[in-house]
């Protein structure tokens, strides 16, 4: 499966849009002063990596709807897989703000590239670390951190998206192993994954996590085609037909929906930061374009309606940065609640999507082409608005949190 997606990166680079990536970060409220050296060095490193490895090829891969799978190794080398998990398992040992900043810089390049890293770190490595046995940690985490293994996360099913508790994928006890049956849908990285962390109901109806390995009989992961969004990220299904999974592959330390939901909290936290990256790239491109594009004898940035758009963009970005920073300090203290994470994910992704749309207008007709990153970000953000808990579901989580009344029942 992988070979189909691997193009010679040198050839691809030549064929692609070679425009220089002139991105600069934006920090209207001197939020950098709230960050430490780890955060600043991590941001600088990932920004350099994105400019060197992602920007020169992303429009081409996105245009062809091909995943640049050669970037998995680069993401691993830079330390983007599980940066906040402990160093003893080959991970970074950094704090949650550093993790957020890494996601921000990756998504500045492309939401699909950020997705490659969020799934590996938050949805595969995190549950193995949090709920796995010591043996499972030692077996899988170093290989996932180094990119030797690619992982994916199976929760959503064709008929169960926002309601994962209704899942029908199941495991049945059969001596030393379980027999796994069912199907998962919209799984990032699945066609190229070596392992899948799959959530399935046991015979008592309790949700359990199992590690399914590529090559197990009855397990397949067909690719989903035809996406107009996250085109540089590979998405697929997971199909299980009487797959025999050793009991040693069950995550021993969690039962119930809180297992997958705690992974999603981790990933949503990263998205709350990541969306700022996409928004900043759109704003940065629009700001520069508004100063260079001359109409009626002056730069379009001199017109009040353009200034309104730009001023509102930087205001919203600044608010989102402060929200993410505060959420990061809470996460570092282990105090960020799932509802607080929902608020930040929902607000920041919606903010980014609105900014992409406004930035597209500032770019005029050029905004619809891949000469500029804006429309690609806009299309990507339509997915980001929906995955990892939809925009509406997150609103209802906040609603439930403030009223104490559950709108899901």
């Amino acid at each position, binding site marked *: 499966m992988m070979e189909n997606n691997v193009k010679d990166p040198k050839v691809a680079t030549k064929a692609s849009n070679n425009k220089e990536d002139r991105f600069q970060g934006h920090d209207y409220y001197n939020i950098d002063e709230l960050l430490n050296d780890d955060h600043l*060095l991590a941001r600088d490193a990932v920004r350099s990596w994105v400019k060197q490895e992602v920007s020169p090829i992303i429009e081409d891969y996105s245009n062809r709807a091909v995943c640049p799978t050669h970037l998995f190794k680069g993401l691993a080398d830079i330390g983007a897989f599980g940066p906040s998990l402990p160093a003893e398992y080959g991970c*970074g040992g950094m704090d949650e703000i550093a993790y957020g900043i890494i996601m921000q810089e990756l998504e500045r390049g492309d939401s699909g590239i950020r997705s490659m890293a969020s799934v590996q770190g938050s949805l595969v490595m995190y549950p193995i670390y949090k709920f796995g046995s010591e043996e499972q940690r030692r077996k899988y985490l170093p290989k996932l951190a180094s990119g030797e293994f690619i992982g994916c996360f199976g929760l959503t099913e064709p008929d169960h998206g926002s309601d994962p508790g209704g899942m029908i994928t199941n495991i049945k006890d059969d001596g030393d192993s379980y027999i796994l049956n069912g199907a998962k849908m919209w799984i990032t990285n699945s066609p190229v994954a070596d392992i899948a962390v799959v959530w399935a109901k046991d015979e008592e109806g309790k949700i359990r996590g199992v590690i399914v390995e590529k090559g197990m009989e009855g397990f397949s992961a067909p690719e989903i085609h035809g996406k107009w969004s996250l085109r540089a990220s590979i998405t697929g299904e997971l199909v299980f037909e009487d797959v025999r999974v050793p009991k040693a592959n069950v995550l021993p330390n969690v039962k119930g929906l809180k297992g997958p939901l705690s992974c999603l909290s981790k990933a949503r936290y990263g998205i709350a930061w990541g969306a700022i990256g996409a928004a900043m790239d759109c704003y940065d491109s629009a700001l520069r374009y508004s100063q260079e594009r001359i109409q009626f004898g002056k730069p379009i940035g001199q017109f009040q309606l353009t200034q309104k758009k730009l001023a509102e963009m930087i205001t919203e970005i600044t608010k989102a940065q402060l929200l993410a920073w505060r959420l990061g300090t809470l996460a570092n203290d282990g105090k960020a609640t799932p509802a607080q994470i929902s608020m930040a994910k929902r607000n920041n992704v919606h903010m980014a999507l609105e900014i992409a749309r406004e930035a597209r207008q500032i770019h005029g007709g050029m905004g619809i082409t891949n000469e500029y990153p804006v429309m690609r970000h806009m299309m990507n953000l339509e997915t980001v608005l929906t995955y990892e808990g939809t925009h509406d579901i997150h609103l209802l989580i906040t609603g439930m949190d403030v009223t104490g009344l559950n709108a899901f029942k």
Partner: protein
Amino acid sequence: MKLLVCVSKTPDTTAKIAFTSDNTALDANGIQFIMNPYDEWYALVRALELKESAGGSVTVVNVGPAANDTVIRKAMAIGADDAIRVDAEPKSAYFVAQQIAAVAKGNDYDMIFLGKETINYNGSEVGAMLAELLDLPFISYGTKLTMEGNAAVIERDIEGGTEIVSVEAPFVVSAAKGMAEQRIPNMRGIMSAKRKPLKVVAAVDCEDPVRVVSYQLPDAKSAVKMVDPENMDELVRLLHEEAKII
């Protein structure tokens, strides 16, 4: 092999430069700083490659205030083993060369690396002064450095060609584009840099004969003048009288 790499801190290449009201110093307000790319991409990385192939250690030295520690940590995140910061404002090339010479004296470094210039002052002075103060040979603008026994073979770009020189260690070399390729630090490097030693030393007394009188920004670009392609005489007149290039 004991290697010393001099690194300096410069404004980011995209920074908008302004001066203090009396035009005698940079106005650092709102400026983002980076490690001088010639020091980082070429001098530091080539020193690390030599250490990796032949063993030894790479120490980085910087002259500057505590705010420079971020740049120093980046050098250690990329791979330097330890660092020395001379706690003083780097007032001039001569001052900086004196401070680094004081650090290097008695430490028997086999090679001292630095970038061919800093991207803010572009003086290319520190290397030559440092070599003179330490009584060492100096090779400037090296684009390639390979070891042959105890001697380094260094290629330098010269007008219209390449000069190849051989020099016995110890020496001072300034690195230009081509000597190595940029290395991006990874997260493990960033975290391990915290545990590497950074020694802060006081500046030595040094009389600085040079004083900055003032800085001036270049004139703003004037508007483009369009000349009719039929009117060559007018083009020649403008190039001669206004642009004064012919």
